[in-house]
């Protein structure tokens, strides 16, 4: 994983001549192999919620996602002996989750009628800013704000509060599949653009377009929520 490490990343031990993050991973793996329960509990608290979110990108049902992640943890423990630190532990764990979730998702797809599946057309949903918020053709000010954004009162306080999180959560859940995937991996889980492009097998441009649409929709949801109060 990139060095854009989440603030809740484990404290690291620097292996001689080594990448600090990697040293921390190796130390953690040793601790786990020794049966250190506190180390495992810590790792679970850091990663489990993100693992469930990741699984939900492939299997929407939350209960199924939790199941998949439990299977993934089994895979993690069983694979620990073979972990050589060629990638970060996090990356390796997320890869296990993604593989299991993808397999499970495909298996479930076969039991659902084809018509039930949204096509990728949803991604082409403009979803972008309402063009009627800008002056249109035939005016001297075409393209400028007609209905500009209004300040969000006590923005930092309310936007970062628990209720706003529910609004954001709901907005993300309502997104077309690939927009939901990109904003989850980028903005919720903190993956960088390259990692997301690799995981979802999309180009950098695709990724930006999807991220743009997703963020625009979420901002819109927050705006509606903050004005409704």
């Amino acid at each position: 994983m990139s060095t854009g490490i989440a603030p809740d990343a484990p404290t690291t031990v620097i292996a001689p001549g080594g990448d600090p993050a990697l040293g921390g991973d190796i130390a953690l793996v040793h601790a786990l192999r020794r049966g250190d329960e506190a180390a495992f509990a810590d790792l679970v608290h850091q990663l489990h919620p993100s693992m469930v979110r990741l699984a939900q990108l492939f299997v929407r049902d939350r209960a199924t996602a939790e199941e998949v992640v439990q299977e993934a943890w089994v895979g993690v423990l069983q694979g620990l002996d073979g972990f050589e630190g060629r990638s970060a532990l996090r990356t390796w764990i997320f890869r296990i989750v993604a593989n299991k979730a993808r397999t499970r998702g495909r298996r479930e797809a076969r039991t659902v009628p084809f018509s039930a599946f949204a096509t990728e057309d949803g991604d082409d949903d403009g979803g972008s800013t309402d063009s009627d918020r800008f002056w249109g053709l035939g005016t001297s000010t075409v393209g400028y704000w007609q209905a500009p954004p209004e300040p969000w009162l006590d923005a930092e306080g309310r936007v970062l509060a628990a209720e706003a999180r529910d609004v954001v959560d709901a907005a993300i859940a309502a997104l077309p599949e690939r927009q939901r995937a990109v904003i989850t991996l980028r903005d919720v889980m903190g993956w960088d653009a390259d990692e997301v492009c690799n995981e979802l097998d999309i180009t950098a441009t695709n990724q930006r377009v999807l991220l743009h649409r997703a963020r625009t929709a979420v901002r819109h949801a927050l705006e509606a929520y903050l004005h409704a109060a």
Partner: protein
Amino acid sequence: MQPSIEPQPADVADAHLHGAPQLTCEKLVDAITDYLEGAMAPDDLQRLELHLSFCPPCQLYLDQMKLTIAATGRLRAADVSAEAETVLMALFRAWAADA
């Protein structure tokens, strides 16, 4: 360089950068993710930053977009259910005992 009164759109429309067409608010909003990703060509970036410097509504939009991203990031810190934790710890103990 900050104007003391909010510029009227017509004034803004007259302000050209190297003779290039002025960036409109609508175009800025469309480009906002490219901007935040650092994926803009230098000329476009310059036009955008110039526009931001004299367009308070666009500056506000950018601030709100940054807040949105911050709010989304807060979703990462979720709790592990007690049930999940129990299952996983049991799993770990069983694995550690065998290892």
